[in-house]
């Protein structure tokens, strides 16, 4: 018999509906697990056990009244700390929002409340989602459950580590350049970057508005699909949200991949990618071939230059978005400012170094005399990235590529070299620039016996197909071993 915290979201939902467990029992098991492991993992900035208990109690009461429960009622979830939660501190990993208590819920938070999913807490992240390791959090680093001396990836590192360590069955993160998929790969879990516009961004603390997207983490492809199902759809509060209907991702997940055309991205399999990572991706390609897919190599020439474009576009949008932290309406304000400019400037001193770096970079790239050379050219590269994908999808139904060039790196290893850190997002950034969908799932162990993530990539609104492909691969592979912390305590 598994412990309740070891169950997947789908199993928990079934057990609650069948009356085998109560939502309260499930939540208590996770709260105890969090209390035991948080000193080692530090996945959360703000755990919310009392809120989770109240929400679980409401689910149990609804069931006792004979009400029909939603598909994931009673399944606890952890939320990245960039998602606004009415009455619950939301820091975005920043000292500037250390005491910020939002007066409203993000649209997806409202959806999860209605779905009866208890909130375990707000998870750790790089400050304002800028980073690839959680080392840029103002509230301490999260430790990878596979090796506590290593990073969990980022920026949604807390959400990935929580799911990997059994602190929650599912969680939400955000992905601007890989911030869901990269930590999912490094922690050995499933992470979904949905199509831009698929999920409402209302109430998501903005980093780069043309790239940001909310998505789920789970230990199985099915769980991730079930969560995305709940949070997808048009929202009048987000003018960029898609009006496209939401397919039933879970219902079609086991429809198989026979006859589909799979492209292996050549640029992901070069010298910069670890041999162990390439070997796992080659094996995955062979599995797809074994399931009746045609598999061939494809080149996306702009893959490499996309990184350069991203590190102009994202900072440009960030410098504009983060102008709102001026000490007037919310966030930190210094005492005794002599005038309003002094107040703005000294209050913004609370930003961490990486955030300051990106604001500076973006301000420079947008400033008079440099706009055409940097931001304007980066926008042209964005067009090239989209064209490369369009060409590829004339020949292939979906693409596969390593999620990251390497397995999890050591805490501190890249902390003083921003450019080296940026390179860990090389394979995830193109999907954001194109507004397209991608899923990262574990495909075995690589260097240092650490998890390797593989991406399945598709055009915008291809989530249904990508879940089918990811599920088929997941079922065909040996299950990933659990991280060492799985059995303790």
């Amino acid at each position: 018999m598994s412990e309740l915290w070891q169950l997947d979201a789908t199993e928990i939902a079934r057990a609650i509906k069948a009356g085998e467990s109560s939502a309260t029992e499930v939540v208590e098991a996770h709260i105890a697990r969090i209390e035991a492991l948080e000193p080692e993992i530090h996945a959360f900035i703000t755990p919310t056990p009392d809120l989770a208990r109240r929400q679980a109690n409401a689910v149990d009461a609804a069931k006792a009244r004979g009400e029909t429960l939603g598909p994931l009622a009673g399944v606890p979830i952890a939320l990245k700390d960039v998602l606004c939660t009415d009455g619950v501190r939301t820091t975005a990993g920043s000292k500037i929002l250390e005491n910020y208590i939002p007066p409203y819920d993000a649209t997806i938070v409202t959806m999860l409340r209605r779905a009866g999913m208890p909130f375990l807490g707000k998870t750790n992240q790089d400050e304002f989602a800028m980073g690839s390791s959680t080392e840029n959090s103002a509230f301490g680093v999260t430790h990878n459950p596979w090796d506590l001396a290593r990073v969990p990836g980022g920026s949604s590192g807390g959400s990935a580590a929580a799911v990997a360590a059994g602190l929650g069955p599912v969680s939400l993160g955000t992905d601007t350049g890989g911030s869901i998929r990269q930590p999912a790969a490094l922690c050995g879990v499933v992470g979904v970057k949905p199509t831009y516009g698929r999920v409402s961004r209302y109430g998501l603390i903005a980093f780069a508005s043309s790239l940001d997207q909310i998505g789920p983490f789970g230990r199985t492809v099915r769980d991730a699909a079930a969560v995305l199902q709940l949070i997808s759809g048009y929202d009048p509060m987000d003018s960029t949200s898609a009006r496209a209907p939401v397919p039933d991702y879970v219902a079609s997940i086991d429809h198989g991949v026979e006859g589909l055309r799979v492209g292996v991205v050549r640029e992901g399999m070069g010298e910069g990618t670890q041999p162990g990572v390439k070997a796992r991706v080659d094996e995955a390609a062979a599995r797809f071939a074994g399931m009746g897919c045609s598999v061939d190599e494809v080149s996306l020439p702009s893959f490499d230059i996309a990184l350069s474009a991203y590190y102009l576009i994202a900072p440009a949008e960030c410098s504009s978005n983060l102008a709102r932290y001026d000490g007037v309406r919310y966030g930190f304000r210094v005492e005794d400012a002599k005038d309003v400019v002094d107040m703005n400037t000294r209050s913004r001193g609370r930003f961490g170094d990486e955030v300051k770096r990106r604001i500076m970079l973006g301000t420079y790239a947008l400033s008079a005399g440099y706009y055409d050379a940097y931001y304007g050219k980066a926008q042209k590269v964005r067009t090239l990235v989209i064209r490369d994908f369009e060409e590829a999808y004339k020949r292939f139904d979906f693409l596969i590529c390593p999620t990251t060039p390497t397995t999890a790196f050591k805490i501190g290893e890249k902390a003083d070299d921003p450019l080296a850190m940026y390179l860990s997002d090389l394979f995830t950034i193109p999907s954001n620039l194109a507004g397209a969908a991608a899923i990262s799932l574990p495909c075995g162990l690589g260097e240092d016996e650490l998890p390797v993530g593989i991406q399945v990539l598709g055009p915008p609104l291809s989530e249904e197909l990508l879940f089918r492909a990811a599920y088929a691969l997941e079922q065909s592979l040996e299950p990933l071993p659990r991280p060492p912390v799985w059995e303790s305590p």
Partner: protein
Amino acid sequence: MRLTREEVMHVARLARLAFTDEEVDKFGAQLSAILDHAARVSEVAADDVPPTSHALPLVNVFRDDVVGDCLPQEKALSTAPDVEDGRFKVPRIIEGA
């Protein structure tokens, strides 16, 4: 390329950020390295390639001009560092006012 100290301080003023002398040197070197990498965009972006500012081809998304629900004033002000008479309060902006 190498950003000068003056350029770094100019951009910092535009962004309302303040740096110590040491930070100006550190950020200047890091930003120069990142910009060197980023400048490669000009090598591939030909003149005939149109720019993409956004992945979705959306133009002017409007809603009907009707009054909907909004945050009550006290809730909207609840997160402000300083408030007076139902308004955000800031230090002096105009000299001699």
